[in-house]
């Protein structure tokens, strides 16, 4: 891979992409057996169901489409941007994947990204992969999507017709919160494994990711806004939503 020629954008133009100070991908050696086992059970379940769902939804489009979308998330994660508070960070993209592709395809794509990062780039561990898929795929993407949908529905119910407001509010809150919660989960897992005391882990991980989440939310909102303006048909619509729009247009 030509990782060496990747440069960050923004204040450090021309400098190699900097590594985040506190990373989210847990490497091997940091978790104990029970934590890894429980995380693996959940993430294998998520993988199995999302593979089935994606195969049913996309059929023979699944391979090319999921493949390029995973490559897209990987590429998007390499661009650095300034984070409020002075440092720079990059997108994690879990909620973005959920908003764009839906809960199942979104979490499958994110899991594929983590697998490639662990297998080929050693970013995150192999036996810790289950925990990483659990934190950022199941909670960050799958959970992030449903949080987004709940908030969007709440906002849209008050303001009938203005779908954009719900989309932006939902995206902002869900992408910020999913990053913070995933960071908190890392701290909890490290604490249960006896690697880092809970208070210390929570303070450093969550404290740091409160700001990272802010950057994540701002960039995710601007991405989703761009797609909403230029190709709104590409944003994921759940089957229930589609049915509602159809019945509404039939009534008119």
């Amino acid at each position: 891979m030509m990782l060496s020629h990747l440069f960050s954008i923004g204040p450090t133009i021309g400098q190699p992409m900097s590594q985040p100070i506190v990373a989210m991908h847990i490497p091997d050696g940091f978790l104990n057996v029970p934590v890894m086992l429980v995380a693996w059970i959940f993430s294998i379940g998520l993988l199995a169901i999302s593979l089935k769902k994606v195969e049913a939804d996309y059929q023979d489009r699944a391979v090319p489409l999921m493949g390029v979308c995973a490559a897209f998330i990987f590429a998007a994660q390499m661009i650095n941007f300034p984070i409020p508070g002075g440092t720079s960070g990059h997108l994690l993209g879990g909620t973005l994947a959920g908003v764009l592709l839906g809960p199942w395809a979104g979490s499958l794509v994110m899991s594929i990204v983590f697998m490639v990062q662990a297998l080929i780039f050693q970013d995150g561990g192999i036996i810790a992969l289950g925990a990483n898929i659990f934190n950022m795929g199941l909670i960050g993407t799958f959970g992030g999507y449903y949080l987004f949908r709940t908030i969007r529905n709440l906002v849209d119910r008050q303001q009938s017709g203005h779908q954009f407001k719900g989309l932006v509010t939902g995206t902002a809150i869900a992408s910020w919160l999913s990053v913070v919660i995933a960071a908190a989960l890392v701290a909890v897992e490290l604490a249960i494994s006896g690697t880092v005391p809970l208070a210390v882990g929570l303070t450093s991980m969550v404290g740091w990711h409160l700001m990272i989440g802010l950057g994540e939310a701002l960039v995710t909102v601007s991405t989703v806004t761009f797609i909403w303006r230029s190709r709104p048909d590409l944003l994921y619509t759940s089957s229930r939503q589609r049915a509602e729009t159809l019945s509404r247009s039939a009534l008119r």
Partner: protein
Amino acid sequence: MLHSHDHHSHHYAHSPIQQAASTPLSLNVAPAIQVLCALIMVLAIGVTPNGHWITGLIYGMGIAIVLFIRPVNLTKLAQRLAVESVFVIVAVIGLLFRDGEGVLWQWGGLKITVTGLVVLGSVMGKLWLSLLVMNLLTMTMPIPVLLQSLSILKIPPLLIAILASMHRYLELLIDEFMTMRRAAIARNLVAGKRWQRLVVGNMIGSLFIRTYDRGDRIHQAMLSRGYQGVIVNQTSVRLRRRDRLALLITILFVIFGQLAFYLV
């Protein structure tokens, strides 16, 4: 497409043929078995309890022997290890702020305890040993072979097909991103932080639109070449004697490493 694939193969320093020629000692074990042995090794390293130094030492020596049989560029290996062990900072923070028995050093809220040192040492040891194993694997095995090995190891074919498809387009998409980035910088991106974030967001959005359309085009191209979904071909390897031997040696070695702690 073809171009990108061609381009890719240049990144693998050794072709399988060269490897076999340059390392006469290499036992020529089937790739799937190599992957399986590496996974067993990483699993064994991962489940080692903290403070079992002798186990770590034995595993380290085992990896050193493999490194001798199958040499890789050591500078490159060291560089990769350094970049990959950023997470160590978390462990160091954990060490400094931990309460525990046997305080060795204290300065205000910071203290170093024996418990903290044992955890830090064990975690770093396990981290570096597993990184060594995985780096050795990926530095000596082309990615397509690695993916093929995974399918032999009963990973679902659809998952492997998506992994392979992602790997194929990864470089292409990164290149496209870099082009957009250059264009943005040429148009004076440096204006302000809010502006930068907005532009990055728009870039990601526009890349997604291009990506989705590209996915559709690829799908059409695949269909026109007769694609009818993932073919489930039962690729199973017939284990040769040396494959069985390699697997057996790995398993025995791993168990020996774990038992050594109780024997000493």
